[in-house]
């Protein structure tokens, strides 16, 4: 097992070209905070992106930032915060869930397309990403996109590699559009709704002109005895006062609205973003399911009936379900897959014992797209040296 730490894109390209000659599979490592995600794979070599690091461009007036793949998310967020800006998609930090302690890197965020609660309003990581540089499995440094917000020149390979978990290439530089930080941020809380009513309330708010930037539901028993349905409003203060009043009226039928601000508000959304509510017990298996909000609570009820001990909450207006189940057997995979097949959408087994992840599909099975997926893998990485099998067998 050898560890390589190239210090530049050119060095990384040469290294990959050499590895490709020997056909040795490699793992790509940023902060190693998500190492337990995906199908377990054995590789002889690891490439750390740690030394391919640093912010390469920040033009606050153009709302753009670029950084090398190994740059920590913390560094990027600090530089943006100094100019009162932020990454729009609120990247999830997996350290609570995986019990890891490294520093997440921006390359790792892009590799997993990790997006947080603001995804429903500002888009996913892939929507903010406007350019990438990467080394493909042939040892070639290539680019897609650039540093401008509107760019339709050629195939959008930047999106294609976002969420590909390193299986297509080693990300050496990523460029994002960013947003101003809101002047004020607060949470509207309604208590005691059941799941279906809660999603209906969230849908009503998200279908209103008052633009919540996040919408989640935490059922009873999830760190608090009562169910909490929460909406986040962000913007200029004058505007928020108005929108609070309008949403109070719109959601009057769902119960009293309590306004939270400061750490009471931001801590709650950090908990939602990082799935802190389900982190313990650490042996529980964690599923992440994306579906249409109105079908989510029915789907969850079906799973809950079949899986004793299941716990869950909803983000993205109900469309993202985080589900914790006992880790035994197939970690409820058969039940979850069947429920998702009926509801529509996709499920990923985010956390589970190694032997479970080795024996079942971790990512949503590809179905009719399997052949094309394999072809795309070959087009980037003909020797299949990057993270082989981490997403899918043979990819």
């Amino acid at each position, binding site marked *: 097992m050898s560890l390589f730490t190239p210090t530049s894109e050119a060095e990384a390209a040469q290294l990959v070209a050499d590895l490709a000659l020997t056909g040795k599979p490699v793992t790509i490592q940023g902060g190693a905070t998500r190492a337990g995600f995906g199908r377990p794979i054995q590789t002889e070599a690891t490439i750390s992106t740690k030394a391919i690091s640093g912010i390469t461009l920040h033009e606050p*007036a*153009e*709302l753009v930032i670029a950084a090398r793949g190994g740059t920590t998310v913390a560094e990027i967020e600090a530089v943006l915060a100094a100019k*009162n800006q932020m990454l729009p998609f609120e990247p999830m930090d997996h350290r609570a869930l995986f019990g890891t302690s490294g520093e997440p890197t921006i390359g790792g965020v892009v590799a997993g*397309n990790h*997006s947080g609660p603001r995804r429903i309003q500002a*888009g996913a990581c*892939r*929507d903010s990403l406007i350019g990438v540089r990467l080394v*493909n499995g042939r040892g*070639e*440094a*290539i*680019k*897609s996109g*650039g*540093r*401008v917000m*509107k*760019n*339709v*020149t*050629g*195939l*959008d*390979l*930047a*999106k*294609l590699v*976002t*969420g590909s978990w390193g299986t*297509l290439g080693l990300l050496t530089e990523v460029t994002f559009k960013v947003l*101003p930080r809101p*002047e004020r941020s607060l949470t509207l809380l309604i208590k005691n709704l059941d799941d279906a009513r809660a999603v*209906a309330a969230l*849908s009503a708010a*998200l279908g209103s*002109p008052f633009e919540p930037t996040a919408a989640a539901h935490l059922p009873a028993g999830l760190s608090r005895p009562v169910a909490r349905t929460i909406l986040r409003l962000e913007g200029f203060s*004058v*505007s928020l006062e*108005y929108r609070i009043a309008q949403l109070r009226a719109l959601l009057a039928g769902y119960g009293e609205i309590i306004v939270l601000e400061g750490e009471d508000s931001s801590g709650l959304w950090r908990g939602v973003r990082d799935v802190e509510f389900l982190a313990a017990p650490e042996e529980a298996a964690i599923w992440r399911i*994306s579906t*249409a*909000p*109105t079908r989510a609570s029915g789907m969850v009820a079906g799973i809950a009936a079949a899986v004793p001990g299941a716990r869950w909450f909803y983000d993205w207006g109900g*469309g*993202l379900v985080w589900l914790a189940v006992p880790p035994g057997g197939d970690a409820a995979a058969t039940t979850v897959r069947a429920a998702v097949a009926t509801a*529509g*959408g996709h499920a990923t087994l985010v956390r589970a014992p190694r032997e479970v992840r080795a024996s079942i599909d971790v990512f*949503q099975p*590809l179905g*009719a*797209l399997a052949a*094309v997926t394999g*072809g*795309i893998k*070959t*087009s*980037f990485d003909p020797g299949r040296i990057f993270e082989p099998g981490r997403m*899918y067998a043979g990819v």
Partner: protein
Amino acid sequence: MSAIAFPAPDFSIIRRRPEILAGLAALVPAEALISAEDELRPYESDALTAFRKMPLAVVLPSTTEEVAAVLKFCSQAGVPVVPRGAGTSLVGGSTPQEDAVVIGVAKMSRILDIDYANRTARVQAGVTNLAITGAVQADGFFYAPDPSSQLACSIGGNIAMNSGGAHCLKYGVTTNNILGLKLVLLNGDVVEIGGDHLDMPGFDMLGLLIGSEGQLGIVTEATVRILRSAEGARPVLFGFPKPELAGEAVAAIIGAGIIPVAMEYMDKMAIAICEDFAKAGYPMDAEALLIIEVEGSEQEMDDQLVRIIEIAKRHGVTTVRESKSAMETAAIWKGRKSAFGATGKIADYICMDGTIPTGQLPYVLTRIDELVTHYGLRVANVFHAGDGNLHPLVLYDINDPVERQKAEDCGLDILRLCVEVGGCLTGEHGVGVEKRDLMTVQFNKADLDQQMRVRAVFDPAWLLNPAKVFPLEGRIAA
């Protein structure tokens, strides 16, 4: 651009025309197959009228199954296919070729499902962009991307080109607003990509397909995000005595943490042309005009405008005029959105579409001026100021071959300039035929080869829209 070569027509295909027509006739109803020369004429070109090619045939299927049958037949027969939406491409995205069958999705124009609770709509590919908003606006919703051609252009074409519009500063472009596609692959297989939920599993094929210019397959259905409209929207006209002041004001507004829903720039020539056409009350004495639109309740709009006007004043604004009525708002946007059409009434023009880092705006405007003067031509500048997507309209006389050549050369120089300052060849119109041979300015061989290897996964034999996007030299097949 008239100099841009098409692949040499394959006469062995053209000679097989009778059998190809017979094969197609067996797959679709008679009225869906066009083969008579006078009926083929409207399909000779799209909105890039400098290129005209008579296709072998045009097929206008009504169902995904028909599209699949025709694609399967064409791929087995080795016949190139040119997909077509509404034919509004400015870059020749659907320019046919003599040895190709055009597959047009215009007849597939139904809205299949509207789901307000989940904020999605499922539509067929031939539905027009504006028809989606039309179907949901009575309930207070809209489909966000708004290309200027939105009355005519199809969502299928928008998906092929990843179309933008004036309001994407806040709402994003097509790729940010599509959740699912039904795609017919070249071999006739029909696959579903994504759905009515957020993000797709596996590789992001949605991101790959959107903007792929009809080279990876034919989209027959899409699930789009619909959004609740703001309570109100108000455009304001800001006249500036110097273009660079307008550019600085844009940067200062963004720097102050304000993202207006649209920030549109017009120079003096564009102001004159559009005002003459739309009578929108544009300030004729200004050297540069910004149309800045804000959204929200009356109070929210007032609040934002106070901030914006205060910034504009610091940058020497000479005219500030808020829209006072829905009619006035419509006129202001009519002027902007008809910029291309209105320009076409006074001269022939080539419309460029490069994007630049907005900080380069003053420099690029000066350089465009110098380039246009060098060629002895005139230019009208219209662009999306917030995102740096430029639309210089280079004016010329189409009947003067020398001037036409100059205009084409000037346009190419402007695009090279965009790349040189860190931008790109096309922000929202696509590469098509028009910018195909400039791809090597923006991308090196390794970049382009990777794109072509991905393309080859879907179409190893270059049958799908083969004359477009990638330079003819150095193409990679399977």
